[in-house]
C-alpha cells in the first residue's frame, strides 16, 4: 500500500469511517497475526489479542494525531494487549523461556511452523525486533524510537538476532 493511500485511510478512519477502518485493519491483519503469534502460545489468545486491538484502535482512533505514526501506534497497542493477555493468564515467564519453545506445533500449517521455528532461537526482545523490521517494515530509526533505544542498538540487536538464527539453522557454519 502506498504511503499516501495509507495516510488517507487513517484520516478517514479517524473521522469515524468504519469501512476505512476495517480496510486499514485488513491491510495490517497479517502483520498483527505474526506479531501476536510471536508472543502468544494459544491460538485463542492470539485471536483475542487481535480482536481487542481492533476495538481499542477504533475506540481511540481520534487520539492518533499523526497519520504516519499509525503503524507504531497499532503495534504498541497490540503488544500491550499480548502482554496483558499473558499477565491475565498468569504466564509471565515468557522472557526467560519464550512460549514458542513450549508450543505444540504439530497441528500448525507448514508455513506457520516454519515461521515459529525460525523465531525460536530468539528471546522476546530480539523476536519483536525481527518482527518489527521484517514483518512491519519499520526502519531501524523508527524501531529505535519505538523501543526507546538508539538506532545503533537496534542495528546491533538485529545483527545478533540474525546471527542467533544462523547458528540455530546452520550449526556447521557458525
Amino acid at each position: 500500500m502506498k504511503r499516501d493511500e495509507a495516510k488517507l485511510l487513517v484520516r478517514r478512519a479517524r473521522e469515524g469511517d468504519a469501512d476505512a477502518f476495517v480496510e486499514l485493519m485488513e491491510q495490517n491483519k497479517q502483520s498483527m497475526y505474526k506479531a501476536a503469534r510471536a508472543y502468544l502460545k494459544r491460538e485463542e489468545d492470539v485471536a483475542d489479542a487481535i480482536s481487542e486491538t481492533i476495538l481499542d484502535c477504533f475506540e481511540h482512533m481520534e487520539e492518533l494525531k499523526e497519520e504516519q505514526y499509525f503503524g507504531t501506534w497499532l503495534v504498541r497497542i497490540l503488544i500491550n494487549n499480548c502482554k496483558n493477555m499473558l499477565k491475565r493468564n498468569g504466564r509471565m515467564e515468557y522472557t526467560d523461556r519464550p512460549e514458542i519453545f513450549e508450543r505444540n506445533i504439530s497441528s500448525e500449517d507448514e508455513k506457520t511452523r516454519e515461521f515459529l521455528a525460525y523465531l525460536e532461537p530468539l528471546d522476546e526482545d530480539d523476536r519483536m525486533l525481527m518482527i518489527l523490521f521484517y514483518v512491519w517494515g519499520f526502519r531501524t530509526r523508527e524501531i529505535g524510537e519505538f523501543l526507546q533505544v538508539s538506532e545503533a542498538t537496534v542495528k546491533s540487536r538485529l545483527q545478533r538476532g540474525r546471527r542467533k538464527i544462523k547458528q540455530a539453522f546452520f550449526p556447521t557454519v557458525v
Partner: protein
Amino acid sequence: MKNTDRSERILTQELPIPAATEEKIQAAYDIVRARSRQRAGNGRANRRGMRPMRKVWAAGLAAALIAVSGLGVMAASGYFTKTVNQEEGNLTYTFDVDYELQPVEVQAVPRYLPEGMKEFEEGSGKYWTEEEYGHGISIFPISTLNLEAQKNMLDFQYVDRVEKTTIQGMEAHIVTYQEAEQHQRGKDVFLFNSDQGYVLWVFGDYNVPLEEVKKVAENLEITVKESSVGYEDMDEEPGKIDPEAQAAADAEFERLADQGVTMDQITKLGETLRLETGNEVTVEKAEVYDSLYEIPGYTEDGVYDMGRLEPWLNSDGTHKPYQRIYYHVNGEKEAEEQMQVKFLMVEAAMKQNIEPSADGTPLNASIVRMEKRADGTWNRIKGDYLPVPSENYYLQIDGGCFYMNAPENLEGSERAHSFFCKRLEQGETVTYTLIFAVDADLVENGQIQNAALHFAAAGDLLNQPEFCALGDLE
C-alpha cells in the same frame, strides 16, 4: 541463500489465519460497524463518553486501556493530560496533548546549586563539580513540542519508588531507582505544569544527595513564553536515511563481524607478524603471575594510572577479586559472580620498518578472547558481562594493558594520549614489556588459553584482523 534473504522470506510469507481466529476478527469488525452507526446517531460530541458493549472475550481490557489511553487515572485540563503507569520497575508517563493550544518555550535556571557546582557550558542545563564521577545535575525543560518528538511518552526502567509531592505549586514526582548505589543510578524530580504546558525534569547523578536535587528543583527560576514554532512546523521525517545506503552499511558491518579469522592471521608465540602497515611485531614471551611484584623488572613508573591499579592490589601484590555481572540482551542483570584476577606479562619486539610518525609508534595491545568455529576458523568473542559499576574497576578497559616498561611520555596530554608510544628510528627494533590484568577464567594450567593480542599498531580490529596468539588455541 543468504541468511537475510531467508529471514525475509520466512518472516514475510503469508501465514494462513485459522478460521476461529478469523471469526473473532470479523466479530470485532461487526462491533466497529455497529458502534460507528451508533455514533452517527448520537453525534460526535458524545464520542468519548460512550462505552461499547463488548463480547465476553473482550473483557478484562481495563489494564490495557489505562496503559494506552489513561482512562480514569488523572483528569487534568490545560495543555495536556498525563497518565502514569507504574508496573514492576517500569514507569511510563503518557501525555494526551491539546493541540489546539499554541505550544510554549520554557527555560529553567537554578537559583540554588550544591557547593562547587558550575554550569558545564552556558545554556547547556548541565551542572558539574570538579569531582570525577557522578556529581552532576541536569535540568531538562520539556514543552509539549518536545513531548511530541518523544511520541508523548516518557519511559523509565528500574524504578524503585515514586513519591508524589508539590514543588513550586506544581505536582512533583520524585523518582528513585532500584539498587541505585550498586548500579550508580541517579534520581529524578519531575515538575508537571499542564496549565502552562511544560514538564521540568531535574536529574541528579548517583553521587548527588536526593535532598540537593529537590532543593535545586525548589529554586528553579522558570520563564515561559509562547513558542514561535507550532506542531505543524515539526519535521515529519527528521534525519531520513537512504535505505539503500543503510542496507549496504548494515551488510558490510555484518560481513566484517561475521568473518572468521584463519590461522594464517594468527601468529604463534615467538613468530613474527608483519603488519599491514609494514612494521613487524613478535610476542616473545607470555607469562601469568599471581603477584605483580613477582614480575621481573616491574616498577611503578610503567603504570599508566596508579589510581586505577592501587585500590585493587593486596599488600603482597596479588589482585583483589572483583564482582562480575552478566547482562541479558535487554540490559537486565542475569547473574553475578566474584572473579579472581591474575597478571599477564608480555614481552614483545616491534621493528620499525616504515617511516616513523611524529607521535611515535603505539606499542600497546589488547587481549581478545577467541573461540574456534565449526569451519576451523576463529571468532572474536565478547562476553555479555561487566564489572559491577559501583566498584569502579577500570583496570581492564577493552582488554588493554595498564603497564609498559620505560615509557617516554609521562606528562599532561602526552601521557593521556601517547603513554604507550615510543619514537623509533626507521629500522630500529625495540623490545619491551606490557602487563595486563586478566580474569582467572582465561587461565588454564598457568597459561592463557584461547586468547590473542591485537596490537594498536595494526589498526582497526574489524578491517585488520591480525593477531598474535598468547598460548594454545584449541
